[in-house]
């Protein structure tokens, strides 16, 4: 299949893709209404028939790999199946076609669902208060750090300017801390891929505002000393934040609040199966302990006398982080998912996510180097270091997997593993799918010895072959220009 022409190349003057009603009020010249100086001369948008529009985007869709098409073991992104009923209920007109600024009494359905979602998140994480306002995980991190900052200001600890992150952390952690005005101190992971308690103790002092930890961490390992870590951090007067990107591994087994974390975010598009949408919209609710609740963004959904309402009376709040109340329609999907699964079902999600990952690990660790070769949680990081000695990089293995009909694992991350291949199967895949994937991985490992060329030139049957990213960055072409 060929890549399609751009939509602009289908344009032909006079075409339009939809009909609109005639004006039903007396017409006045637009010049008269707003003055000619305020009007544009030309509107250079394309002109297309509806057939063209639908065919174009249908063809484009066929050039995409997706969860509905096949296995998508993209580590840390949790590409699990997206249940269709969630799409259906969130799209009900009563939810979709409702203005956000109408009176609370006219929005009781949505407010009830939002309130329930907050309550469920409290139950799943063990925290005391929740905001749904952050639009994505990174904004959830940001919101939580702002909450910490406001708390420190309130208790006379505003001098704390440092945030500690492990070297295995996701890039959003340090980027977020910078956005909050904090300096970053990076600590090296221990031999076992977990936080090195003594390195952490050395880094802690009364300048430290917070520690950001992902648990299970980005290597797919649970921080077994988490209670000790939290205690150490609190003794230093700092707060500890849980990046909840991997909460899908531990539901029903472990609640971050119980081990001493002060706040966390969740990615609804990871743990709670909302679709990733080609890169959003996500949703990154934040959950906190009681003492931090007053600082959560304004407004929050509250309940009083059986009436749900948007609570704006929050004088200590950090303020707004969104134009409305967050990605509400995404929260509705997560709510539907939680209601479908229940307590037992969510635990089965984690059970099977971890089982599937360990199964893959047990079958692949002969052919591939696994730097932290022990039981993993919901994902593990292999390395193509052995293959690299034969001239085959993680990138080549990734591209070759495409030939076998799979989306590749995450490569280039985490940064502390060279030639990383981060594999996350999720609980929504069957043993048959995993077995086929294992076969493909083993074949590729053999090919790296017998026929490295076929890896280095992969993929072979895609709409485009490997693309020249260097030229794209050197001479950026960021929009279509008619020539």
């Amino acid at each position, binding site marked *: 299949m060929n890549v399609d022409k751009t939509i602009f190349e289908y344009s032909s003057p006079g075409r339009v*893709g939809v009909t*609109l009603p005639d004006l039903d*009020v007396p017409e*006045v010249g*637009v010049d008269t209404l707003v003055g000619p100086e305020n009007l*544009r001369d030309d509107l250079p*948008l*394309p*002109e*297309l028939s509806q057939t063209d*529009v639908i065919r174009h985007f249908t063809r*484009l869709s066929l050039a*995409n*790999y*997706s969860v509905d098409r096949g296995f998508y073991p993209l580590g840390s992104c949790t590409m699990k199946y997206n249940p269709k009923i969630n799409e*259906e*209920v969130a799209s*009900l007109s009563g939810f979709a*076609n*409702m*203005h956000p600024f109408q009176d609370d009494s006219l929005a009781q*359905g*949505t407010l*009830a669902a939002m309130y329930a979602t907050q309550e469920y998140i409290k*139950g799943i994480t063990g925290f005391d208060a929740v905001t749904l306002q952050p*639009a994505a995980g*990174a904004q959830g991190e940001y919101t939580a750090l*702002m909450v910490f900052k406001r708390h420190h200001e309130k208790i006379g600890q505003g001098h704390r300017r440092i945030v500690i992150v492990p070297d295995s952390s996701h*890039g959003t952690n340090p*980027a977020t801390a910078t956005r909050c005005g904090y300096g*970053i101190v990076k600590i090296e992971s221990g031999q076992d891929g977990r936080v090195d308690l003594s390195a952490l103790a050395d880094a802690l002092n009364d300048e430290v505002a917070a520690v950001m930890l992902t648990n299970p961490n980005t290597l797919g390992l649970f921080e077994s000393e988490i209670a000790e870590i939290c205690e150490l951090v609190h003794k230093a007067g700092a707060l500890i934040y849980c990046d909840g990107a991997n909460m899908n591994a531990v539901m*029903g087994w472990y609640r971050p609040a119980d081990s001493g974390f002060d706040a966390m975010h969740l990615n609804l598009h990871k743990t709670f199966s909302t679709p990733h*949408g*080609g*890169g959003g919209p996500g949703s990154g609710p934040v959950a906190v302990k009681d003492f931090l609740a007053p600082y959560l963004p304004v407004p929050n959904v509250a309940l009083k006398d059986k009436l749900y309402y948007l609570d704006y009376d929050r004088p200590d709040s*950090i*303020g*707004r982080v*969104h*134009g*409305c109340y967050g990605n*509400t329609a995404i929260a509705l999907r997560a709510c539907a998912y939680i*209601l479908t699964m*229940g307590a*037992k079902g969510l635990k089965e*999600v984690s*059970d099977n996510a*971890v*089982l599937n990952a360990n199964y893959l690990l047990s079958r692949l660790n002969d052919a591939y180097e696994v730097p932290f070769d022990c*039981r993993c949680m919901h994902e593990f990081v292999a390395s193509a270091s052995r293959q690299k000695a034969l001239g085959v990089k993680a990138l080549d293995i990734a591209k070759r997997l*495409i030939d076998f009909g799979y989306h590749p694992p995450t490569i280039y991350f985490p940064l502390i593993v060279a030639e990383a291949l981060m594999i996350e199967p999720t609980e929504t*895949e*069957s*043993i048959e799918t995993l077995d086929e994937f294992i076969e493909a991985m083993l074949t590729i490992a053999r090919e790296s010895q017998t026929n490295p060329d076929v890896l280095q030139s992969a993929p072979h049957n895609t709409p*485009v072959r490997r*693309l020249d*990213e260097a030229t794209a*960055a050197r001479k950026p072409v*960021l929009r*279509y220009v008619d020539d």
Partner: protein
Amino acid sequence: MPYIPNTDDDQRRMLESIGASGIEELFEQIPADVRLQGDLDLPSPMSEIELRRHFANLADKNASTDRFACFLGAGIYDHYIPSTVAAVLGRSEFYTSYTPYQPEISQGTLQSIFEFQTLICQLTGMEVANASLYDGATGVAEAAIMASSVTKRQQWLVSECVNPAYRETLRTYAWATGYELTEAPRDGVASDLSKLKGRIGEETACVIVQNPNFFGSIEDLGEIESMAHEKGALLVVSFDPISLGLLKPPGEYNADIVVGEGQSLGLPMAFGGPLLGLFACKQQYMRQMPGRIVGATTDTEGKPGYVLTLQTREQHIRREKATSNICTNQGLCALAATVYLSTLGKTGLRQVAELCMQKAHYLADQIDGIDGCKLLSNRPFFKEFAIKCPAPVSEINGRLREAGLIGGLDLGRFYPELADCMLLCVTEKRTRDEMDRLAEALKQ
């Protein structure tokens, strides 16, 4: 469990391969003292039938536009969504994929973002656009941070006529990042130009205005542009994309960064989310832009294709020195906007804009003659305008509700001096009959 294929037998086979006695053993990494005792506190699970019924009941408790004609705007608008949008967005090839990290199997997403970037440039008259941000409010905050990194200046100046929710978000971000935010007062329903000018100083990184502004009025962007640039500050303009079907785009006013709420471009109001942050700027500031960007290139065989580019700006590479912490954007919403703008095109968007403007002026004329009602200003406006009401806004809105109408925004909530004032919005969906009913209800 419909979403978990493993049977007991599958589990047994897998555990054998792993060499574990049971699933419990796989969780040994979690020490006993931090393990959850007992079950999660959640409601009992629902079947699809029960779930469908539960959500249908909730949806019925909302006052949706199925039952009411909506005259509420204030940044979120009840515009018509052509059927093409749902048809494309419903394709799971788009909605069940992720950020296009592997370009060879993501050309659908990448090309549509490239087209989105192009359409936003065409609409705004700017040179480069990104792949979207969360929403208009955070987009304004990102623009301000970017302006500070371009100019190395610490102060942001925002007009009081910018959407109050955007200003509140800006305040949150200014506090967190340590920049200084100042507001410039309004004169009636537009920015007070002489006061604005007086507040632009040598340390002003950017002047932030909205056009049409929160009151629906058209600002004097030409004048504001020269004030800002005279002092070396950047001009940041928040725009309504529908208005650009008719109005002169911010690019023609030499704006440096433009930001807009893209919800109007094919997204349902959905109680305010997901939304879509539109973001474009001058070419020279390209490398300071936040968010994902797609660029055109060629493959090893010379075939054209698209990739995520200029990635070194981003958090996964530059970490604490990144231009922004944003990772996920609003991909699917940007696709909606791409389909929307492709469907309407040059003539369709102009027609939508014209219908909004003509009808809004019709309603304004009807209201202006009513006893106790008065337009706040005669300034040119697009699809929204503010009126003084003969009674408290909540009372008026109660009356309108009985007539099957959702009334306007109570301006007193954000501008205490504007008690009893209402901001009304008219989109192309409103009919003459609905507007006449609104005018009628105001007469009582």
